[in-house]
């Protein structure tokens, strides 16, 4: 994730981490901030303590990655760890794709 952020940020790739807590102590924003420092996460992270975004996405899993194209459409959903090479090829393809919204 960090690698992708460093690698593709200049090409128009934006990573948004939605932090939806599972346990009470994870609701503490300070703890999340410390975790970001520890994990050297530099991309934007939304605090979803009230689970609004989780619900609007009808999400059920951690981690879950939604790949959104230039037109705002969800094109690929990756649940769980692994298959990073395929996910990266999806990012590359979506970046190479001509925007349909513009």
């Amino acid at each position, binding site marked *: 994730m960090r690698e992708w952020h460093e690698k593709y940020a200049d090409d128009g790739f934006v990573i948004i981490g939605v932090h939806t807590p599972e346990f009470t102590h994870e609701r503490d924003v300070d703890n999340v901030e410390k975790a970001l420092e520890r994990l050297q996460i530099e991309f934007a992270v939304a605090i979803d303590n009230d689970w609004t975004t989780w619900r609007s996405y009808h999400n059920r899993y951690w981690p879950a990655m939604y790949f959104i194209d230039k037109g705002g459409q969800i094109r690929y959903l990756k649940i769980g760890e692994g298959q990073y090479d395929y996910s990266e090829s999806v990012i590359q393809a979506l970046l*190479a794709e001509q925007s349909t919204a513009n």
Partner: protein
Amino acid sequence: MRASLCIHLGHITVKTRTMGPSDMSVGRRNPPGVGRGLAVRLCRTLQRKARLHRVILLAFVCGLTLVSCVMPDTTTQPEVDPGAKVEAIQTRVAETRAEQAAKDEEMAAAQDGNDEAVEETAASDDADSALVVGPTAQQLELLAKLRPQGEAPELLNEIWLNSDPLKLADLRGNVVLVEFWTYG
């Protein structure tokens, strides 16, 4: 040789046939006077027939000899033919080679044209790629599989880290990865 043999054969047939009427079995059935007269008549007619047979045989043999004389001409013809055939084949081969060469030249010319066309398109592709990098064939294949699954719901969170609050609506034209995670 054939003619003489045939004549001999004719003579033999005449002899054998003349033997018929003088046979004892025939003599017994008919009265002797009538039988002799008949025999003489028969002999004469048979002799005439024998002459006729000889003439026919001679004519046949002459025909055969004539044919055999003519045949060498027809048999010698093939000896002449091979040369002519070889020449004909050689000319045909030469013609087909010339045709093939002409075709090859045409093909080469057409290929050159194609190559030029390809070069032109490549040049135009390069010109395009200088502006925008298009997806590769492999990426297009992948993109075809990545069917749109609906518009991504807007992010309504108020507290953000590492960034000011972001809206997906403001990020159109960018590829966005929304990841649900927890540090725990």
